[in-house]
C-alpha cells in the first residue's frame, strides 16, 4: 500500500503538472480539492483519466468520484480493492 501511495503521488504530480511539488509535500490523508492541493474540476477529470489509463479503472458515478478522489489514500484504496481480481 505504501508503495502504491508513493507511486500515485508521482503520477498525480506528472498528470497535473504540479512541477513545484514533490511527493513528500503531498499529505496522503489530506483532501485533494479546495484545501490540500487546491485542485479544481479539470484536475478531477484528469485524475479520472489517470485511473482509467494507468489502472484500467472507471469511476461510475459522481458520488463514487467524490469518495475515490477525496485523497491519495482513498485513490490507493480504490485501486487496491478493484485489483483484487
Amino acid at each position, binding site marked *: 500500500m505504501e508503495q502504491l501511495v508513493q507511486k500515485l503521488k508521482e503520477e498525480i504530480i506528472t498528470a*497535473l*503538472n*504540479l*512541477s*513545484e511539488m514533490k511527493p513528500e509535500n503531498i499529505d496522503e490523508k489530506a483532501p485533494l480539492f479546495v484545501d490540500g492541493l487546491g485542485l479544481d474540476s*479539470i*484536475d478531477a*477529470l*484528469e485524475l479520472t*483519466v489517470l485511473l*482509467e*489509463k494507468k489502472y484500467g479503472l472507471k469511476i461510475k458515478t459522481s458520488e463514487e468520484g467524490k469518495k475515490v478522489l477525496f485523497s491519495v489514500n482513498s485513490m490507493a484504496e480504490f485501486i487496491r480493492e478493484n485489483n483484487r481480481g
Partner: protein
Amino acid sequence: MRQTCIITSFCAVRDNKLILDGKLLYESATGDFTDFASRLYKHSGISYPKFHKMDNLCKLGFITSEFLLKDKELSGRYAGVETGIILMNSSSSLDTDRNHQNTISDRNEYFPSPSVFVYTLPNVVIGEICIRHKIYGEGNFFISEKFNSLFVFDYVSQLFNNNLVECCITGWVEINGSNYRSVLYLIEKTGKTESGIANFEPAEIEKIYNRK
C-alpha cells in the same frame, strides 16, 4: 466623444528575450519556448502554480502581461470593468489543438486529456490574464494572418470613444511549434497618467511591434 490615448508601456517576448519599454530585461541563450517560459517565470519572482498547467499560448500571454503590468497598480487605478483586453494572432490555438489531436489519434490509446482540451481555444489566454488581474471588461481575441495595427487601433479606439474602457491591454500573442512572439501594449487615456511611451496611433503601434 473622441478620446486621445497613449501607449503607457509595452512588453515584447521573442527569440528567448523579454523587452519592457524598449529595455532588455531578460535573455536566455538556449532552450525551447517551454524551457524559456519556465526560466522567465522564475525570473519574474511570482508564485502562481497554475502557470505550470497552462498551455504554451497562455504561458506566453500570461508572462508577457505579468511584466507589462508589474508595478502599474492597475487594480488600484481602474475598476475591473474599466479594463479591456484585445488580442490577436495568426495560429489561434493550433499548437495545443495538435497536442489534443495526439491524445485521441490512436483508437487503442484513446485518452483525451481534459487539461489539454480546455486550452483548445485562443481566448483562454484572455481568461487567464483576467483571472490573475481581476479584469472584467471587454475581451476579444482576433485571428489575422499578420499583425494588423490599423485594426487594433480602430477596435481599441472604439472602446475608448464609447466609454467602454478606461484602460486596455492589447497586442499580439502567437505561438506555433518553435515559433513564438508576443507584443503587448498598455493603453490609457491622456491625462490619466503622467508619462507615456508614444501616442496610441497605427504608426507607433507598428513601430513598436517591429522593434528588435
